[in-house]
């Protein structure tokens, strides 16, 4: 999974997608996830970072994370490809 090329994420949570011309606002935890995706962390690594930082449980986080990824995908902000790494 990768952030699409040229998608700009500002520190305050503004995203601009130059391909579609759309702008978005993202909350701080959303920005963190986008940064972790940019760093090419996988889902397990991302979960770990967030669980250490926030008071929530794995199930809730997984659920919300999956939902967030769906929406990013829906807005064409990320590319999901088969994870073939071992």
């Amino acid at each position, binding site marked *: 999974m990768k952030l699409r090329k040229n998608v700009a994420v500002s520190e*305050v*949570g*503004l995203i*601009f997608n130059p391909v579609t011309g759309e*702008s978005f*606002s993202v909350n701080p935890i959303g920005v963190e996830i986008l940064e972790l995706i940019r760093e090419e962390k996988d889902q397990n690594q991302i979960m770990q970072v967030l669980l250490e930082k926030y008071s929530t449980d794995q199930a809730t986080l997984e659920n919300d994370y999956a939902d967030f990824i769906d929406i990013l995908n829906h807005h064409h902000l990320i590319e999901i490809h088969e994870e073939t790494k071992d």
Partner: protein
Amino acid sequence: MKKRKINIGVTGLNAIDSPGPGVSVIRALREAVSFDVRIIGLSYESLEPGIYMHDLVDRTYSIPYPAGGADLLMARLEYIHEKEKLDVIIPNFDAELYPLIKLEPKLKALGIHMFLPTLTQFEERQKVNLNDFGKKYNISVPKSKVIYDLNTVHSLPSEFSFPMIVKGKFYDASIAYSIEQVKTFFNKISAKWGLPIIIQEFIHGAEFNVTGLGDGNGNTIAAVPMRKQYITDKGKAWGGISISDEKMLDMTRKFLRNTKWRGGFELELMKNKDGELYLLEINPRLPAWIYLSVGVGQNIPEALVNMAMGETVTPFVTYDVGKMFIRYAWDMIVDREEFEQISMYGEL
């Protein structure tokens, strides 16, 4: 001598194809001779063109929609006032007037002045009340009837002749030539704006507008009549010309004398082929074509600000006849950062 500077908050920056009056009001204020201005734009949506007109608007803050409630609006205006020291606010949307009329004393206590109609004046001129309004103030209005029930439609032909106008309580109007059409429009308009529906006599003739300013004591401070020359598919004047019509001015003066209207207004008038005038609607604010008033020698927004500030204003008595306004659209180039700034932070 240096002129005093007044900080004025202005809404209605949506200078689009069915424009809000804000940008025209600001242009008038920029040409005021009795004061200098700093203009604080008050916007609802991030794409209101006025937000990005930096030569007209010094700074813009987004404000909550009237549907959010008066308390919320007050909290936002207090915040803006803290930063900008507002002296005057000129609202340019009908829907804003209700909460702002209610907030007038509170804003006044902060030193923010407005010049608005009273709540009674605002309510009396609502479309559903037009018949009573005409009776009470002895002003000719087209005959109209408020209906709630589709079944009562069948008795209409005994009271009205075709065509008749079917109107929503806030917006929308269609001309019906048969009972079937009345029914269709009844359903269509009530689905969108709710009940009641207003049935109004159709007046054949030409459409005229008058804008002006009443002092709240029955006196006419300003009045400029205009004939629409070109009407867009949204019913807005694209071009118009100032005219001299004593009858129209008489009706305007009568309206102001009898209602003691306070503030700016626009009258929508119809003149039938016998030259009789009918009042169709009263808009409780300045119209989008208000800049024409500056062009003909009556800077109504300037006078309104002076009245709001408690100054004595000498009524305008003359204006240039035969001056035209022609509206045009203009594409601005705007950086995305500005759009994001107003969208994210509500300030630009």
